[in-house]
């Protein structure tokens, strides 16, 4: 167990280090930061002084070390565009994105898994076939179109739900996190964007669970469970579903990372004040500190999620827990 976790941790740290190196190299590749910070009539002496103050004349290794040790403490420098610390900027935006992404993944799991089990078990039923057809639509229609259609129906025609923004938010955890879950308008605002974002993943989870269920239901141990007279519920959920979970957990983990990193389109459609829009602006303004910080942060999310996924495997599958080679026990 300790071996397994420490091995994964070591890998994660290596990945983060490499990503930090890439993020750091952005500063060198995408132009001289000094040029973007000063006015055009600054003298050469002034520029040199600024370079010295910012440490740009130090060797690369020392600069990199400074960058990493700053990043570890949440200090990613100052945004060229916003003129504010990048760490603060991201911290302000993160709750919006994380709440949206978390809710949409939760929705996709809560809806996708039961639907997947249902369509897997009633492969030839009418409802199941209908669901499969609808799910194709969910996979093939682009997110922005679904968002616009939802806004048109629920905000413009019916007027039930707000069409943009987060609504009222409440600061919790000593002001470090602003949540939309505690107000009516915040919750209402979450509905449309989270459904938009969840639709694609729901269909994917459903199709994956269905395919895995079809496979598992054909295995010998399910047949043997049936031959022992076990009830439907025990067979479908206790024996079958649990065995389908490994790939499902993998995909959900990757999806959560994806949604956090690339909810940009949904955030744009709903004018959601999340990190996606911050990142989009940063690209337009060549705001390198924000871009590199974003890169590191997304990598960090992926690494953490993958670590949790690996630990989930460990919890689900007892075969990973034992060190003994299969078949060496005495006959």
């Amino acid at each position, binding site marked *: 167990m300790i071996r397994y976790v420490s091995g994964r941790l070591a890998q994660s740290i290596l990945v983060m280090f490499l990503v930090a190196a890439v993020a750091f190299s952005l500063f060198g590749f995408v132009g001289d930061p000094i040029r973007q910070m000063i006015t055009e009539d600054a003298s050469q002496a002034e520029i040199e002084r600024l370079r010295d103050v910012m440490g740009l004349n130090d060797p690369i290794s020392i600069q990199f070390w400074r960058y990493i040790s700053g990043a570890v403490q949440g200090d990613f420098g100052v945004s060229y565009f916003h003129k504010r610390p990048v760490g603060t900027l991201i911290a302000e935006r993160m709750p919006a994105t994380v709440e949206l992404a978390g809710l949409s993944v939760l929705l996709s799991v809560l809806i996708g898994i039961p639907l997947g089990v249902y369509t897997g078990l009633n492969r030839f039923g009418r409802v199941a076939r209908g669901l499969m057809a609808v799910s194709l639509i969910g996979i093939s229609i682009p997110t922005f179109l679904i968002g616009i259609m939802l806004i048109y129906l629920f905000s413009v025609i019916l007027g039930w739900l707000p069409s943009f923004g987060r609504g009222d938010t409440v600061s919790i955890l000593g002001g470090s996190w602003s949540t939309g879950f505690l107000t009516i308008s915040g919750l209402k605002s979450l509905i449309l964007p989270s459904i938009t974002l969840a639709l694609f993943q729901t269909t994917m989870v459903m199709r994956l669970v269905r395919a895995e269920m079809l496979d598992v239901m054909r*295995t*010998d*141990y399910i*047949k*043997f*469970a*049936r*031959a*022992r*007279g*076990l*009830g439907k519920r*025990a067979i479908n959920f*206790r*024996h079958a579903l*649990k*065995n389908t979970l490994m790939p499902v957990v993998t995909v959900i983990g990757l999806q959560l990372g994806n949604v956090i990193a690339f909810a940009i389109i949904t955030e744009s459609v709903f004018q959601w004040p999340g990190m996606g829009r911050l990142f989009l602006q940063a690209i337009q303004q060549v705001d390198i500190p924000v871009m590199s910080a974003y890169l590191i942060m997304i990598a960090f999310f992926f690494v953490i999620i993958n670590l949790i996924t690996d630990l989930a495997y460990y919890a*689900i*599958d*007892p*075969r990973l827990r*034992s*060190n*003994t*080679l*299969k*078949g*060496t*026990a*005495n*006959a």
Partner: protein
Amino acid sequence: MSLLDLKDLKIHFDTRRGTIEAVRGIHLSLERGEILGVVGESGAGKSTIGNAIIGLLDPPGRIAGGEIWFDDRRIDTLSEQGMRAIRGRRIGMIFQDPMTSLNPLLTIGDQIAETICRHSDLAKGPAMERAIELLGEVGIPDPSSRVNDYPHQFSGGMRQRVVITLALCADPDLVICDEPTTALDVSVQAQILTLLRRLCRDRNVGAIFITHDMGVISEVTDRVAVMYRGRVVETGKTSDVLTHPTHSYSKSLLAAVPRSDVRLDHFPQLDYREAGDTRAERKVIDLATHWLGRRAAEPAANDTPLVQVDNLTMRFALHHSVIPSWRRSFTAVRDVSFEIHSGETFGLVGESGSGKSTVARMIAGLYQPSFGRIRYDGTEIAGPEAQVMSASMRQQIQMIFQDPFSSLNRRKRVSEIVSEPIRHHRLAQDKAEADAIVADLLEHVGLGAQAARCYPHEFSGGQRQRISIARALATRPQFLICDEPTSALDVSIQAQILNLLKSLQAELGLTLLFISHDLPVIRQMCDRIGVMKTGELVEIAPAEHLFKAPQHPYTSHLLSLMPQVAGQGKLERVNDR
């Protein structure tokens, strides 16, 4: 009234190409406490009967006619709900492969307790205690701690004991055993059969043994029903049927069982056929004119053995670590030395886990040995001074694997599969020549040239093994490694495949390394035999010596475990327990 009565049972499978009649009106009955064997080749419909009784026919299978009566109740018309109350509680079932019959994610205790709770009023706690008690009864050591283990922590034989516990934990009156020991070793098989027989006797449980293994039938059953293409051709007391079969199919089936007591020139083939049951005949190869005779290099005809294995050792790491004292390894093969002479068949026999397949894989170059060396035709191919195997040498060594289902690429046509080595080694001038060779090879292994256009899934196990053989022959090999080539197959098909190998060997002068756990087969096939036990070679002797006068105690032990078929030597073992 009997415990179970099948009256004119018909089972049909509706497919796009029409209805397949898997079972064509059979009558069978079973008394309480009686053990009935159902024997036949694969495709005879024996498993279908077992599945029909317990109501688990795989779609599109359906009962097309007849009745199933169990304990004075007609059960073939029961609803799914009604059947669920019977399954497990009144009728238990044991499947062939203990490796796949258990849910890998639940502890065995959970699986047993769940079944007990389902069929009784016991709560989880007492059910767990009962599970421990039952596990002790089937001979699992230290059941109170093993009950919390997962299936993968058990060996095959132990898992089958768990499966038996599961099938019997709700005290059923009837247990259906579908090939219960086919996936197990001889020694484990003997233990499991004894256990099953004892449990059935003690609990007065009726049992149906579905198997293709005459040895199992002879060891365990009271009565036997012989099936051929959906019909029962003969039923009777086991000892009667085995010694004096009346139907000609039973006679030929019995004759096809490899004999452990005498060595014959060829395996007796199952020659009984009805109309519509066609098998292709094969032609004899004349090496002088045939493509297979044009070998790249003939091995020098001198006294050096073709294959020489010295002090071969193979270790697998179980636990990797930077710190040497933390490392754990498992020695699969320890200090094995033997030689194989040109043109002979060398057999390796032993239980599973004895390292025989590992030896084969090292010779084939699939594993690198930890120590020791392997020489082929005087050249070292593995070991400290090994040279990179030349293409022509790789061409001379070919392997036939145990499982004909997983060793063929199912996305490729047979023509592509068989011609791949030809193309790889550039043995043919052009595609036309390659195609001609493939057609010829398929002809010679008895499949017919038209098989080239098909995909592997269109063939049965035996036919697929022929494709494997054709593929192995396509490189014009000198030396064939056969790793349990027939253990997945029926006796009748086994006889055909082994005869094919024998004829090919005679015609092509092949050298064979033949690996099997089946002693009668080894006796019929091999000139010399090596016996392996837990990674070590305990005895090497010419086949006849080994069977008549085994030197090592382990060899005698193995020989004593061979299931005996009544009518072939020892008869007293039938029904005397």
